[in-house]
């Protein structure tokens, strides 16, 4: 319940945060809403020596019209994305997936940047990012900046491809105005992580499908996408949902059950989204 002791630095700007990361390297962790990191610290599964609090960087909290995409500041709280008219109009999959994250109290604190940087294969946001073909902007302590495509952001189990001296500053979501979409989240109790989940997004005649909790990272269901591109029906394409996946077996579900859920939920998502 009580985290291991740490030193605390409150950053007044992104530059200050990056300078702190530059100084402390991988001994430091950024904390935005803290609703992925703090629970781990309370269970002592994580014990960074230095916490760099970026929660007050309100100039990184925004939802802006970027022309062909929506630009969302990394510090934007889930609640603000959930109710954003711009997101609901141009990327409703993201607004909807966000509304399923945790519970209202969690959504008042958690941020999209924090969620993506946490790189949890069982979280809802990353699947929406992948299905929408989104990307993140990452700034580094040496002043550099790069754009990381969603598919390149998730390196391993709870491991993003960010270096210890980088932070996400913005999330870019291509607009999908009027395109079919669907989000499926299967769990047994309110506020639970998905046992298995699916994000499906139609885009200009093709579709992207991303799965939740079917591998150690957020992952695209490429076999399903290829089947759809080949003209398969929703039911037939969905039969490929477990191909290439490595779901874990745990207290909630066996590997077989997860594979089954992936197929059923993918079929539902594709049909609801009008994709096939």
């Amino acid at each position: 319940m009580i985290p291991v002791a740490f030193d605390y630095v409150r950053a007044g700007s992104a530059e200050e945060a990056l300078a702190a990361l530059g100084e402390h390297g991988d001994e430091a962790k950024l904390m935005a809403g803290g609703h992925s990191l703090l629970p781990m610290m309370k269970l002592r599964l994580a014990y960074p020596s230095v916490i760099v609090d970026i929660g007050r960087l309100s100039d990184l909290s925004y939802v802006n019209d970027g022309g062909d995409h929506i630009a969302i500041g990394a510090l934007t709280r889930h609640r603000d994305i959930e109710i954003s008219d711009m997101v609901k109009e141009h990327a409703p999959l993201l607004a909807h997936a966000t509304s399923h994250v945790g519970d209202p109290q969690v959504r008042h604190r958690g941020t999209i940047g924090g969620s993506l940087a946490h790189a949890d294969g069982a979280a809802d946001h990353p699947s929406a990012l992948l299905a929408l073909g989104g990307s993140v902007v990452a700034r580094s302590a040496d002043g550099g900046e790069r754009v990381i495509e969603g598919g390149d952001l998730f390196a391993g189990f709870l491991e993003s491809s960010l270096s210890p001296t980088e932070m996400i500053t913005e999330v870019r979501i291509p607009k999908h105005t009027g395109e079919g979409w669907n989000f499926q989240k299967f769990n047994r109790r309110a506020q639970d992580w998905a046992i298995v989940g699916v994000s499906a997004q139609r885009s200009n005649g093709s579709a992207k499908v991303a799965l939740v909790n079917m591998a150690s990272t957020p992952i695209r269901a490429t076999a399903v996408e290829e089947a759809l591109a080949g003209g398969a029906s929703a039911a037939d394409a969905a039969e490929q949902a477990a191909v290439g996946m490595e779901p874990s077996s745990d207290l909630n579900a066996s590997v077989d059950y997860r594979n089954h859920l992936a197929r059923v939920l993918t079929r539902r998502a594709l049909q609801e989204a009008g994709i096939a």
Partner: protein
Amino acid sequence: MQRFAGSRPPGMDRLVEVSLSRRCDSEDSVQQSSTVTNLKGAPVEISVEVNGTSHSSDVEPRTLLVHHIRDAVGLTGTNVGCDTSSCGACTVHLNGEAVKSCTVLAVQADGQAVTTIEGLADGETMHPMQEAFMNCHALQCGYCTPGMVMASISILDENPNPTEAEVREGLEGNLCRCTGYHNIVKAVMSAAGGDQ
């Protein structure tokens, strides 16, 4: 972290291995890290406004807001009911928004305004939500109740006329072992309907 509830969680070995490898500069310090020695955490001075009154104190950075409220500020209406940010018994308002104070550090509340269950009543006059809970018998043991009331007020702040389904979804972050939620939902609907 509730998906890890129960016995040793699947994936935890990998998680610990990853945590250790990230902290370590060299290979052989993996052995040394099996005992966590950490001289960090010098106290930080913070000032938090709680129910309208400013409280200044020195806190270790790792102090959770719920512990700060209960121990340093001395308001024990806010409860700790779990270890996993699930139960919501610790729910308070931070700058007017319902948050789980067990998943907020006291240092994050520095310079901010916190409202606890003790801050709702106006003298002897109960807040309408408190009165609705009383009238609808929305509590038995009362342990989840402060968090339920704070969360319920937040639901109505954001959605003044919710459907019953919206109330149930709005209370997803609060667990009750006694009541089965039925009367809690009635209380929130009653408060929304302005029956008070």
